[in-house]
């Protein structure tokens, strides 16, 4: 049953990707200009070349990935800490509410320009991604902790269950599926933010600068191939998060 569901999901995903490719091909035929919409086949060839023969691409990808990872790890750590404190001490949650609203509504690229004054082009994308990911992850973690069944929390109090055991056996397994989904989405969102910031501040050895150079030199198949890489990364993270979440959710059913 579970395997059938997986195959069904894979088939539907393949249909979705196929539709995107169809739209691309139709656009390519309709526009008839390789500079505006390059041929799908050219982009695939370019992508294969990047993946299998271009060490420079992998170096840039690794650096961008590490930036995403840094922003993600810091966001997760702080989100966990603040969400836990906010759950235990409601005053902390109220103090952080306006901070979270501010971070959510702050124009990312404008903030990036300010941060660039204080730091350098290698660090600024990490900070910008962190500032955008933190409120999302914080809201997700806080929501998940708050959603832990109050009756089970009461039961734990009555039976004097030690705090460490409550965290390990009640809280963590309950928030794990929520967190896995949020984390997968956050990683995907993270690469979007980091690449955008890298383009704006021209970070050396990054996917962003490769994209910008491809655009400047009119190498549209390369630009599209790089965009496909970023999209595929986000898609994979999302799938991974969803898969891990489903594994947690299956326990007990």
């Amino acid at each position, binding site marked *: 049953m579970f395997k059938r569901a997986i195959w069904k999901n894979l088939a539907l995903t393949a249909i979705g990707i196929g539709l995107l490719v169809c739209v691309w091909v139709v656009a390519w035929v309709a526009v008839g200009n390789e500079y505006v919409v390059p041929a799908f086949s050219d982009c695939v060839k370019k992508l294969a070349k990047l993946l299998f023969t271009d060490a420079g691409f992998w170096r840039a990808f690794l650096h961008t990935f590490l930036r995403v990872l840094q922003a993600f790890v810091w966001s997760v750590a702080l989100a966990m800490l603040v969400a836990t404190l906010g759950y235990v001490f409601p005053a902390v949650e109220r103090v952080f509410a306006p901070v979270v609203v501010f971070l959510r509504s702050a124009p990312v690229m404008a903030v990036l320009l300010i941060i660039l004054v204080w730091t350098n082009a290698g660090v600024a994308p990490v900070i910008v991604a962190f500032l955008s990911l933190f409120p999302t992850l914080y809201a997700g973690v806080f929501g998940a902790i708050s959603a832990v069944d109050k009756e089970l929390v009461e039961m734990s109090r009555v039976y*004097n269950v030690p705090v460490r055991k409550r965290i390990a056996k009640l809280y963590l397994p309950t928030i794990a599926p929520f967190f896995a989904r949020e984390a997968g989405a956050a990683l995907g969102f993270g690469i979007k933010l980091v690449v955008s910031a890298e383009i704006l501040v021209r970070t050396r050895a990054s996917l962003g600068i490769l994209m910008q150079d491809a655009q400047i030199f009119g190498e549209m198949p390369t630009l599209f191939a790089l965009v496909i890489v970023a999209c595929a990364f986000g898609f994979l993270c999302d799938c991974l998060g969803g898969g891990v979440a489903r594994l947690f959710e299956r326990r007990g059913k």
Partner: protein
Amino acid sequence: MKGLINKSYETKRVFTDFAFAFPDGEITCVLGASGVGKTTLLNILARLTEFDGELSGVPAKVGYVFQDPRLIPHLTVEENLLYAGANPEKVDTVLEKLGLSAYKNKYPSKLSGGEKQRVNLARAFLSDAELLLLDEPFAALDTALKIRLWKEFALLWEEKRPTTVLVTHDLEEAWALGHTVLVLKDGKIGYSARPKRTELPLPYGAQSAEKSAFLREILGE
């Protein structure tokens, strides 16, 4: 165990100088209309609800059989019992007595309502509680299962005889299980009785002049 308590919620006063004394090592059954404060009383004794007043002689180790089983869905029956502090060496014995041995490694979602309620009961007994609180533990069960569970409950209770407060809507249940039967009315003990018994529980439907007289008193006839 005794106390004098005052408790009110935002719009409702539940107890005003409510004085009670529950005999140690006995089962006190509490009856009363919905909203009279039966569950509030249990929550106060379990230290889950704040109140004004004082309690004395309330044991620290509490076992609470909630009205709904409150089992952690991602833990098996055995893991649920161990989570609440059950002695691993006693788990098998108690599960066997409650007819749950086959469900030890099953998740709550695989159990029926009656089986979940037995796990709820097992958890309370395995916690080695000195005070046992039961909130309509046998409500929503069919009569046959209910009577079976009364017997299972009585057998386990006799082993340690913890001070017990059992809230119920069912006079039959209260009469079968309680050493003392109380009826809460207007935030006070309206009526009380001590059924004469030689065994626990009394057979279902055991008629007695005492029970009939008590029922007439409650009904104001």
